[in-house]
C-alpha cells in the first residue's frame, strides 16, 4: 500500500503503478500532458518503465487558455 500526492490530492495504490498505467487510469492516454515528479520532469519515453514510489509528489499538466 503506497500513497502519493497527485496535483495536490492524496491517492493510495495497493501496488505502485508505472506512470504509463497511472496515465491510463486517469484517462489521459494520448493526450498532450506533461508530468513532474518531485520537482523533476518525467520524460514521456520513460512512462512505461518508471513506477511511482510511496510519498511521490506528481504534477500532471496540460495547456489551457492564457495570455
Amino acid at each position, binding site marked *: 500500500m503506497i500513497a502519493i500526492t497527485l496535483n495536490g490530492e492524496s491517492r493510495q495504490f495497493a501496488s505502485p503503478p508505472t506512470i504509463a498505467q497511472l496515465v491510463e487510469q486517469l484517462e489521459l492516454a494520448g493526450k*498532450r500532458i506533461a508530468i513532474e515528479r518531485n520537482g523533476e520532469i518525467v520524460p*514521456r519515453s520513460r512512462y512505461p518503465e518508471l513506477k511511482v514510489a510511496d510519498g511521490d509528489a506528481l504534477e500532471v499538466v496540460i*495547456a489551457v487558455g492564457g*495570455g
Partner: protein
Amino acid sequence: MGRPDAVAVGDPLIMAGKTWRSRLIVGTGKYKDFAETRAAIDASGAEIITVAIRRTNIGQNANEPSLLDVLPPSQFTILPNTAGCYTADDAVRTLRLARELLDGHALVKLEVLGDAESLYPNMPETIAAAKTLVAEGFQVMVYCNDDPIVAKQLEEIGCIAVMPLASLIGSGMGILNPWNLQIILDRVNVPVLVDAGIGTASDAAIAMELGCDGVLMNTAIAKARDPVMMAGAMKKAVEAGREAFLAGRMAKKIYQAQASSPTDGIIAPRKS
C-alpha cells in the same frame, strides 16, 4: 488596395532566427468558449499564440476537447507562458513542463509576477529565472517592467525578445510611459514587443509607431463586446502602426502651420 502592404513587400518579424508575417501575438484566455477563441485568433492573423500550463482536473471531463485540439501546434506557434508564477523556481519548473508537453519546443514567454493585485512583474525573480532558462537552452521572450537598464540586462543574459508592459495586465490603460519604451528601443538590439495594457486599436498602433517590433495582447480582444471584430481591428492597427513607422511621419509643429492648399492664385476680394 492600391499597393502591396508592408508585410507583402517583406518586413517580417524575426525572432530567434525564425520569421513571422504577423507582428501581433495574442493570448488564448478569457474567451466565452473555444469557438470564439478560434474565430478571434483567425481574425487577428496571429501566428504565435500564448497558452498557460495548468494541472489537469483529475478524472474530470476526460473527453472534452482541449485547447491544443482547437489551436493545434501544426497551425500556430504555441508560446507557453508562466502566468501565475511568483517565483523564479515556479516559472522555471512550469516551462520545463511546457517543453516536455510540446515535444522539446524551446520558445517560451517568461513572466514572474510581483503580486496578485497589480500583476506587476517581479524583476529580480524574472532575471534569476531568465539566467536559468537561457542556460537550459530555452528561447526566452521575457515580460518585464519598462526599465531600460533591466531590459538591456535581460538582452545580455540572452533573452531573444524583451516585452515591457504598456500598463498593468488586464488594465486596458494603454501606453502609460512611451518615453521609457523609447529609451529601451534606443538601447536594446533584440526585438522589443509591448506586452500587457493594450486596451484598443490605437494603443497597438502607437506601440508600433514608437518602433516596437510587435505587440502581445489578450484581454483587449477577449473582453471587447465583439472579440472577433476587435481582433480584426487589432490586426489592422498593428499593420497601420508598423507602416506609419516605416513611412516616417510628418514633423509635429505646434504652430506656424503651412496650408495644404497653395496660397497663391486666390481670387481677389471683391471691392465693397
